[in-house]
């Protein structure tokens, strides 16, 4: 399709959850039959090569310097920009998490190249690509046709990718290692990790989320039990987080996390778009709410009109008896 090569930017920082394979899968699903090149930035090359050489990529360029850390945004962006300046390229793909998005913005500024964010699907059109994103609180999809062969940076919403997609081109990856010698000075910043550095919510297969309708912290203890029983993670609406009933790392939505579990159970959540934008791509949605007209029922597959606490308590009592199937 395009003459100039496409690149994926993979930031292999062991300190942060590695979503790079998801990005590779996203690219394979969306840019079918394209040769995918990747530039990996990593503190050392061995682990990076091992992680990606069998991933169905065409060429792997590994940029290494011992001090690499994603959190040094300006430094990281400078290394990527310098690499991309030297390579003719068309589309360049980044992940969509906070940190990577901030880095992508700095790269776009340094290269004076366009950046489009939150892309969740791509289709081939006559002269190039049409990319799609969710806008207006998830109510509309916006489709943008890119100029053929133009350099455009994209951050990709990889939450919905099917991780089972396997490499279509199994040709061995060509690996080029490059030690970065002229590392720019690190940003003079200080990073404070929050206590809950590792959280599973974004990758959970089951999310049990509560809102104002859970009435208080005790309601959330019940939801936590349900989440544990279903091997899932606890989520919450902003109202519940602001009230202090649960930690802010559980918040789902515009200001919080985006989750795409197999099953999302929303208890006592009204379904404001600021919340649903973070969960409406879930594969199966179960809603429990006292109000039969709650907006959340519009995007549910199964709904129970009733008191959240009572429903969850009864469900837990049934779940205590082991299920034989």
């Amino acid at each position, binding site marked *: 399709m395009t003459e100039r090569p496409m690149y994926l930017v993979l930031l292999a920082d062991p300190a*942060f959850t590695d979503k790079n394979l998801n990005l590779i899968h996203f690219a394979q699903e969306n840019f079918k039959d394209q040769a995918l090149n990747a530039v990996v930035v990593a503190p050392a090359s061995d682990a990076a090569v091992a992680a990606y050489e069998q991933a169905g990529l065409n060429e792997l360029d590994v940029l290494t310097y011992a001090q690499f850390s*994603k*959190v040094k945004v300006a430094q990281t962006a400078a290394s990527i920009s310098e690499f991309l300046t030297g390579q003719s390229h068309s589309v360049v793909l980044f992940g969509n998490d*906070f*940190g990577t*998005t*901030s880095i992508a*913005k700095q790269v*776009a*500024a340094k290269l*004076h*190249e*366009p950046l*489009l*964010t939150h892309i969740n699907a791509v289709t081939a059109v006559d002269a190039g690509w049409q990319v799609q994103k*969710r*806008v*207006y*609180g*998830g*109510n*509309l*999809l*916006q*489709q*943008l*046709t890119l*100029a053929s062969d*133009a350099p455009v940076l994209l951050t990709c919403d990889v939450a919905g990718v099917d991780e089972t997609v396997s490499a279509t081109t199994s040709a061995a990856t060509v690996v080029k290692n490059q030690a970065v010698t002229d590392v720019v000075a690190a*940003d003079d*910043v*200080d*990073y*404070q*990790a*929050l206590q*809950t*550095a590792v959280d599973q919510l974004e990758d959970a297969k*089951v999310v049990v989320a509560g809102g104002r309708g859970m009435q208080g912290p005790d309601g959330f203890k019940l939801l936590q039990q349900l989440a544990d029983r279903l091997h*899932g993670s606890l989520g919450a609406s902003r109202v519940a987080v602001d009230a202090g009933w649960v930690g802010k790392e559980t918040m789902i939505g*515009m200001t919080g996390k985006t989750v795409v579990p*197999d*099953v999302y159970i929303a208890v006592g959540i009204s379904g404001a*778009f600021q919340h649903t934008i973070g969960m409406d791509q879930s594969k*199966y949605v179960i809603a429990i709410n006292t109000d039969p007209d709650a907006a959340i029922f*519009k995007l549910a*597959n*199964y*709904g*129970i*009109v*009733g008191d959240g606490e*009572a*429903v969850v308590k*009864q*469900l837990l009592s*049934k*779940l205590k008896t082991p*299920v034989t*199937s």
Partner: protein
Amino acid sequence: MKSLVFIKSVRKLNADPQLDAQGQVNADADVGINYVDKLAIEAGLQLAGTDGSVTVASYGDPQATESTLRDGLAMGATKAVAITSDLLTDQSNQVGLGVVLAEAAQQLGDYDVILTGDQAKDDVQGCVGLRIADALQLPYFDRVNQLTLNGDQLDYQLLWEHGNVNGSTATPAVISVTDTINKPRLPSFKTKMTAKRAAIDTVDVAKLTVMDAATWKKLNGAVVAQRFVPKPERPAAKIVNYDQGSGAAIDELMATLQQQNIL
């Protein structure tokens, strides 16, 4: 400190946006100031001190722009500027807009910091701030969740993966604020009345001085067509009433969980 705050009019999302035959959003909607942009104004007001100022500026449909700018004045902004330009089309809005805003900033001058919201709630692009910084060659910080004046530097805290980053920057700089940085003040009756009568300045961006033609072409020409489509319909939910006595809803819920392979 003198702030220049870019604010956007967005439609209120209480009704589903309607599309015309070309796949464009009907413009007749009820609009208001993008929520996070109020927080950018508040941040500017807090930085202003006694001898500072806050200018709000906006590009868009003339009527919507005027009402949004008056909302900004009602919060306490000292000056309001409506930006017009023939350089943008529906397509180029996505990428070129930030450059046009940068040019407007250049014409206006007289700022120590440029503030924007982190993203507009309609198009969630989040790129306007970076484009302004790129065109004006200023440092750029996004997801800024705390901002304080420290001598002639700005100390910032920004939200990052699993934590916060603290740093400081010289001015001028471009800063995009999060929707948790502060609580925007409410306009008083008095400020609303003043805002109603205040004059609104205009700046027309007819040509670019902040960027060469080739770079502008690369940015502005990247998107050649743009349309909206409705989100795919979800099949209607099966909804049952809870009756604790019979427990039927719970049995069905258990069966559903089994069907979904999570039990």
